[in-house]
C-alpha cells in the first residue's frame, strides 16, 4: 500500500467541506506574495510594498459604557458653596445682588409669576389669614397677608 501523497478523499480536499465559522484569518501576518502579470519591475515594487506595510490589525473591541460609569459631577445640595463665585447667587432675579431679570435671555423672559402667585394665594390664603389672626403674629406677616388679600 502506497503511503503519502495527495489523497482526493481527505477532508481538506473536499470542496463541500467549508468551515461554518470562516476561519481565523491571518491577523496581520499575511505573507507577501508575488503578483504576476504586471510590467517589468512592478512585481518587485509590489513585493516591497507588501513587506513594508503591515496589515492593519482589527481594532480591539470597546465595551459599551453606561451613563453611570461616566464621571459626572455631583449635583450637591442647596447649602453647598457656589460653583461660580464671581456671580452673585441672586443674579437674574429681581432681588438681591447682581443683575435683575431684565438681563435674562428673551426666551426666559416669559414671566408666569403673576399666575403662580395667584394660584398660591388662592391655595394658601385661608391658612395665611388664620395665622395672621393669631395674637402672636408679627405686624410684618399681617402686612404680607393684607398685600396678598389685596391682590385677589
Amino acid at each position, binding site marked *: 500500500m502506497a503511503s503519502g501523497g495527495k489523497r482526493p478523499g481527505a477532508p481538506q480536499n473536499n470542496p463541500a467541506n467549508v468551515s461554518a465559522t470562516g476561519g481565523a484569518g491571518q491577523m496581520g501576518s499575511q505573507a507577501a506574495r508575488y503578483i504576476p502579470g504586471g510590467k517589468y519591475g512592478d512585481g518587485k515594487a509590489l513585493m516591497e510594498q507588501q513587506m513594508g506595510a503591515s496589515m492593519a490589525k482589527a481594532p480591539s473591541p470597546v465595551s459599551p459604557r453606561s451613563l453611570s460609569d461616566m464621571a459626572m459631577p455631583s449635583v450637591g445640595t*442647596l447649602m453647598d458653596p457656589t460653583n461660580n463665585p464671581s456671580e452673585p447667587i441672586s443674579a437674574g432675579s429681581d432681588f438681591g445682588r447682581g443683575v435683575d431679570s431684565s438681563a435674562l435671555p428673551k426666551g426666559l423672559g416669559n414671566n408666569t409669576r403673576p399666575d403662580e402667585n395667584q394660584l398660591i394665594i388662592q391655595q394658601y390664603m385661608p391658612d395665611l389669614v388664620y395665622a395672621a389672626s393669631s395674637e402672636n403674629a*408679627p405686624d410684618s406677616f399681617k402686612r404680607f397677608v393684607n398685600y396678598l388679600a389685596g391682590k385677589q
Partner: protein
Amino acid sequence: MSQATWIPGGLFDNIDKFANSLGYQNAAIALELAMVPWKSPEERDAFIMGITGDDVQGGTEKNYAIKQLGR
C-alpha cells in the same frame, strides 16, 4: 378657636421672613423657600442674607418671646 403656632423656624415664621426679605411680589418663591426643612433659623437667615446681601426682614423672634412671657 386655637391660635396658630408662632415659633422661630416654624412655617409661618419662615413665610414672614422670606416674604419680607425677598419682597411681596416674590410671594411664590417665598412660600416655596419657607417650606424647605431648614435645620435651624440661623441656617435659614444665613441663606436669606446670602441671596439678598441684606439683613433678614420681618418680625423678630424677640416678639415671640415677649408674647410668650406675657402669657
